[in-house]
């Protein structure tokens, strides 16, 4: 077994709540449980995909890891460096971790040339300007943008795909060891998206990077990730190797997500909507299992206790790396009283495969 220092990313018990200003004067301030007790570890060179509906806390996790938002609790170690919020600690961590944002335009200063944007980070960290400029040109070449043509341009003068390449180059400018992609390819055309994904694969090998890849696109996550983490209302519902999770989803939410995944295969057509309605508000999350309000298998214990992450019985990954948080995981079918009588959901891909 590896020692603690062998992990590139080591997150333990990460929590973040946002306080919402009350609507009326004198009303009780409300609390958004954005991220509740997230823990995971990543070895160097691994790509972890994080999936979930919008508002489930994916982006907050990214911002917490970058130190852009201060965590309420928990412990984050990145490349052996503990994340702290003193300016010097933050600066040290930000050499190791960088982030690519979803909006390629908003994440570049409109008044800075591409070159200036790429030089900014290294210059802040004390690199001489001439060297930073050379570095910027190297990086442009590596992300497939000809330096002579693109260095002097402004963000509005390059296309969306090219802009996202600039953002990727900027993230690499500080030679980080971990790169977080927050929906980084979601806004791109499909044809450009695959180019950028392939570029990411190449860069990962070339620079020896560890990726955290946040996306709502399950196909993309399957394509690029080794591990996958499924979030629901600020909690991990399932985590494991991508193959295990996609082939043997253990949590009803994961199953529903996968069933809603668009596919080119006509035999994999969804018969009934896998889950209906919107996720409940993270301001007052449901008691016990947070998914129970939309879960077809919810029973009485689901409302009473929060399920823990436990290992699943996937044959291919019996080492315990595949885990899910569901009370029903090891329960015999019908052994518990259903919480709300809900007709079971049928999709042709998972015929009666209730755990």
């Amino acid at each position, binding site marked *: 077994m590896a020692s603690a220092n062998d992990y590139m990313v080591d997150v333990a018990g990460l929590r973040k709540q946002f306080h919402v200003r009350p609507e009326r004067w004198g009303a009780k301030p409300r609390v958004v449980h954005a991220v509740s007790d997230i823990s995971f570890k990543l070895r160097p060179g691994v790509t972890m995909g994080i999936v979930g509906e919008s508002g489930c806390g994916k982006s907050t996790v990214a911002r917490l890891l970058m130190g852009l938002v201060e965590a309420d609790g928990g412990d984050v170690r990145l490349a052996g460096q503990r994340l702290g919020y003193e300016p010097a600690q933050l600066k040290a961590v930000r050499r190791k971790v*960088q982030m690519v944002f979803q909006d390629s335009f908003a*994440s570049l*200063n409109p008044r800075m040339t591409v070159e200036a944007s790429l030089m900014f980070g290294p210059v802040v960290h004390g690199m001489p300007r001439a060297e930073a400029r050379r570095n910027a040109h*190297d990086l442009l070449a590596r992300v497939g943008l000809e330096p002579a043509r693109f260095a002097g341009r402004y963000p509005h003068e390059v296309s969306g795909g090219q802009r996202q390449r600039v953002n990727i180059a900027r993230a690499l*400018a500080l030679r980080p060891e971990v790169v977080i992609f927050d929906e980084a390819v979601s806004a791109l055309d499909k044809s450009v998206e695959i180019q950028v994904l392939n570029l990411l694969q190449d860069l990962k090998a070339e620079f*020896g990077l560890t990726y955290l890849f946040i996306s709502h696109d399950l196909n993309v996550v399957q394509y690029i990730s080794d591990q996958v983490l499924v979030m629901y209302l600020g909690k991990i519902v399932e985590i494991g190797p991508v193959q295990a999770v996609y082939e043997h989803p253990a949590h009803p939410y994961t199953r529903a997500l996968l069933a809603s995944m668009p596919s080119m295969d006509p035999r994999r057509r969804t018969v009934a909507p896998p889950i209906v309605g919107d996720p409940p508000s993270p301001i007052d999350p449901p008691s016990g299992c947070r998914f129970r309000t939309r879960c077809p298998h919810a029973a009485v214990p689901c409302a009473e206790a929060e399920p823990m992450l436990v290992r699943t019985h996937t044959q291919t990954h019996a080492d315990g790396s595949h885990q899910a948080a569901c009370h029903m995981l090891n329960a015999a079918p019908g052994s518990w009283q259903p919480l709300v009588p809900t007709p079971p959901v049928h999709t042709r891909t998972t015929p009666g495969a209730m755990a």
Partner: protein
Amino acid sequence: MNTTTAPLAATALPAIEASPSYWAGVRRRLLQDRVAVVCMVILALIVLGALLAPWIAPHDPAVGSVLKRLKPVGTPGHPLGTDELGRDMLTRLLFGGRTSLLMGIAPVATALLIGGTLGMVAGFLGGRVNAVIMRSVDVVFAFPSVLLAVAIAGALGAGIGNTLLALTIVLIPPLVRVTESATTQVRAIEFIDAARASGAGNAVIMRAHVLSNVIGPVLVYATSLLSVSIIMAAGLSFIGLGAKPPTAEWGLMLNTLRNALYSQPLVAALPGVLIFAVSLCFNLLADGLRNAMEVQ
């Protein structure tokens, strides 16, 4: 780590295909705006006349002859006539421009520096710092600006220095407001987060990323304040709180020539015409600047 630090090519930098900067575009669009160009020409002539007054003025601004009081426009030797003490109007208008333009421009420049900085800090840091700065500004806002300027100038006593101070104090709050709201908008855009993620501190981010994005709208607003400042300076002088006689100043001249309004209306109106022209030009120039900046 070895592979990651090896540069791809240590060769000489290739020529960069430079794209015209944002400000070059603003200048080009401004020069295409006919109204703005006319305003700039008029302002340039007036400023140039004021700057060169000691060399181009035909007479001494402080010396007049009682025998030549209130000559009409077009009198030989006095193309714009003479004032109530027989001093040459053209000379006094040129010299008056020095005082009036100084009293119009200097307070705006100082207020821009102070108010702009305060507004940027308040907008960028937010929270308690914002509350302290903005609420203090609100206190000053509670008084009508002209009244406040009169009160300050009155309390400090007449004189150009005190007028400058009074005008600066009055002009700071609106500039803080405008800069703060522009900064608050910019701060929410992701490139600020990206800069923070690069490891930059607040001061560096404000200088490198915020300033370049808020300076445009703030500059437009400051240009429009120039006309306000010139009118207020003239107003203070008119009621005896600004420049003191025999200093030539447009507002003061307007006051002393008031009695001649019926005998020599044209001569008496001249300082007012200049005040009007300068403030109108600054206003129209501000409009032109705003239009030139809007294109993205």
